[in-house]
């Protein structure tokens, strides 16, 4: 019996390891491809390059003239970090209201919140574009930042819901005691709720970062000037223009473009799982 159990365990390990390797193969391949000579990227079945070509990164970095990828990374970080901070602020305040304050029609608004989590953003893509173009926000980052600060950007309703659910789990006695001591609502939120709801705020930060970083569709329609380009848009021109005869450089930049999201994920992983499992759902 015991022996059988051991065998089963070993089999499970082998299975999930082999499978994990298949899952990761494309990414491992990408890492190696980024230092291969361009002619070898597609055609060679072996992972290791015949010659080590780190200059792919240099070539890729200056591939979209007249700018370098430093400019595009700068733009993307500005856009994404603004959206993250705005999402954090609105989800903390609105989340607190939904979790703690008994205002009229709260249940109604809460169900609206829930409904908008499921609202497919693509169905309003065209009209949002028309509206933003009429108020002259094309080629600015406002179509990203303004919806984020109003809690309707990428993941907006979900973030409010996530933080509200988390705040519900914080003992009410804490903020009620503060209230009795004469603490204002703003102070309660900033001094008591904010530190205690850190895990959920970290999850908001991770998701907001990843989703805004990857939000190719909106970037594609709102940003058409090269000097406003994000990394994703710049990446796209690299495979468009050249017909991708410089695959080594393209893969090098593709690798660079995923590094920030991966780093953020690994640094805040603990909070990510905590946030998702306490609030239940979505990813």
């Amino acid at each position, binding site marked *: 019996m015991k022996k059988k159990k051991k065998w089963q365990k070993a089999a499970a390990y082998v299975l999930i390891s082999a499978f994990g390797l298949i899952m990761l193969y*494309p990414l491992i391949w990408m890492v190696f491809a980024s230092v291969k000579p361009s002619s070898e990227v597609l055609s060679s079945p072996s992972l290791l390059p015949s010659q080590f070509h780190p200059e792919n990164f240099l070539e890729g970095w200056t591939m979209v003239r007249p700018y370098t990828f430093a400019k595009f990374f700068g733009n993307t970080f500005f856009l994404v970090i603004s959206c993250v901070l705005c999402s954090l602020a609105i989800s903390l305040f609105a989340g607190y209201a939904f979790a703690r304050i008994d205002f009229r029609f709260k249940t109604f608004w809460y169900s609206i919140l829930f409904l908008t989590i499921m609202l497919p953003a693509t169905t*309003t893509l065209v009209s949002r574009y028309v509206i933003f173009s009429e108020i002259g926000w094309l080629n600015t980052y406002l179509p990203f930042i303004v919806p984020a600060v109003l809690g309707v950007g990428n993941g907006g309703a979900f973030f409010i819901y996530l933080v509200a659910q988390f705040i519900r789990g914080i003992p009410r006695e804490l903020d009620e005691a503060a209230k009795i001591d004469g603490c204002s609502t703003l102070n309660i939120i900033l001094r008591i709720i904010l530190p205690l709801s850190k895990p959920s705020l970290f999850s908001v930060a991770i998701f907001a970062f990843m989703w805004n970083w990857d939000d190719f569709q909106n970037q594609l329609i709102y940003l058409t000037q090269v000097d406003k380009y994000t990394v994703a848009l710049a990446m796209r021109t690299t495979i468009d223009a050249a017909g991708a005869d410089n695959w080594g450089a393209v893969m090098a930049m593709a690798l660079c473009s995923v590094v920030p999201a991966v780093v953020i994920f690994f640094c805040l992983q603990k909070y990510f799982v905590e946030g998702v499992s306490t609030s239940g759902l979505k990813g």
Partner: protein
Amino acid sequence: MRRKKRKNGANLIGYSLIAPWLIGIFCFQLWPIIHSFLMSFTDYNLLNTPQFIGAANYSKMFQDENFYQAVRVTFKYVFIAVPAKILFALCIALILNLKLKGIGIYRTIYYIPSILGSSIAVAILWKALFVKDGAINALLASFGIQGASWLGSPKYALFTISLLTVWQFGSSMVVFLAGLKQIPMELYEAAAVDGAGRWAKFIHITIPGIMPMMSFNVLMQTINAFQMFAAPYTIFNGRGGPLNSVMLYVIYLYQHAFKYFNVGYSSALSWALLVMIAGTALILHFLQKRFLNYDD
């Protein structure tokens, strides 16, 4: 009297805290929906003044062969990608839920592809791997297998895109894992006392236990799948792929809106998409109520 006063205070504070979100809902969600409804009855290309043309956009839509192609392709994609992704996520979650040492690392490994989401890097990677003279075929050739034209043939192109979707099953897996952890151990213990075998436990405890997560995943992934855009758009340069076999709905919508600046027609397409997604969501909801109600 005092009670009422306090209530008013709560209203004031509550509404001022959610005021930005209310503005957001009206300006950037409700208004665009109404706006696109109005626009769908006009001829508008961003430069002219919108001309009211009645239901002409809708009658054009129902005669548009490409519209039907886009709907067909999209439903096919949803029916292939969503069940495959969820089944996959469930199987992996069940294995990862075994109490094995170091399982946390595997959870991370399986999640990594999903971090990359709909990024362009992933689309470029998929193109490099699956083009005819690309890495997958080179790998297959080294085993003596003749690879197909994964992206160039109408037979395989949509499957190759679906494979990308399935590869990113991480978020569904995390949801399943959270659900599996919530099933009380006592249930399994009680079942073991009653002499239930592994299979019986799985059918009668595990499956009903994760049903809420199942319906959540199916719903969310279906809604997402209808909106698939970034990867196929990048891989096929904004077109519909071989013989329009990958002409997903949103790509078609995008072409009309941002290539031909046909705002009226693409608004009608947007509304049709909303109706399609809402209809599918309602059917799923109904099916789940009808067949998966394990609580009774």
